């Protein structure tokens, strides 16, 4: 019995170590994010959790002038376009396990910076928190 308990303990430890949350951000060498004032958030096709609205709200709350829409092209010229990919899992409830956000040049759409937040079930957070930490990681580089 003690062996089984030890083994299960090791399994739990190993799984816990393998499932650490991570937050990683990168920036193109020549990118200057400080010049960005206006942002267009492009809604991801099939976004069933309204992540685009959360991103837009967070950008507006942090001093940007952010708009959103489903079109790939912003209705008015902007400094940057934000795209994203969200992944969800189910563990008693649905939760966002991974969020990738890219900040692109407003004209060329080339990626200027990006970040990924990964949070497994035990370290899950709200969509608002995931969006906030990912955007903060991008703009604080």
């Amino acid at each position: 019995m003690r062996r089984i308990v030890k083994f299960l303990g090791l399994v739990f430890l190993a799984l816990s170590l393998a499932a650490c949350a991570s937050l990683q951000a990168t920036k193109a060498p020549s990118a200057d994010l400080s010049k960005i004032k206006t942002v267009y958030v492009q809604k991801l096709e099939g976004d069933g959790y309204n992540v685009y609205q959360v991103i837009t709200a967070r950008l507006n709350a942090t001093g940007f002038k952010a708009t959103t829409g489903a079109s790939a092209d912003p209705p008015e010229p902007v400094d940057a376009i934000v795209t994203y990919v969200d992944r969800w899992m189910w563990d008693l409830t649905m939760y966002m396990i991974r969020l990738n956000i890219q900040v692109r040049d407003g004209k060329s759409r080339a990626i200027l910076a990006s970040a990924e937040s990964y949070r497994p079930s035990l370290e899950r957070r709200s969509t608002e928190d995931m969006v906030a930490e990912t955007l903060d990681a991008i703009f604080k580089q």
Partner: protein
Amino acid sequence: MRLFLFCALALLSVLSACATPSQPTAMAVSGVAVASKSSETVSITVTGGRVTSSTYVSQISDADFREALKQSILKSALFSKVLDDNSGRYRLGAYIGALTQPLMGMSFTVDLEVSYTLVDSTTGKTVWQQSIATSYTATGSDSIVAATRLRLANEAAARKNIETAIAAMGNLGLR
């Protein structure tokens, strides 16, 4: 006690061997049709990549993508030589901006987007800038092992990306 140790070692080996990095030779391309070749040298810098061990899934590292780019450029003879320092006539920068991967499934579609910048070091002017997005779907027929399937999808998306980049630079009419 022996059984316990055996199970523990087996579990740890499975966890530690679940992902392998994308390989440079598998990401490199050969036989790319280049319209015009340059007699000058090039230096390559890659940023934005990730090391596989930090994320537990197959990734593309800066060093491996650079090596794949180097091998591909040499095979296509796009430039005369690829220098390991920053003294090349041309400086090619590649920023791996997005590597979007699935969490699970039988078909793994990986989307890769790389922003390339080619600068003439003698004038300091950017002679080419392009963001190239490619994707590849690896299926169960590629590999039944999910970790391997993901790596194969990474490598194929990278190959397509590098191939497009070399073909585009080959149309620039570089000196």
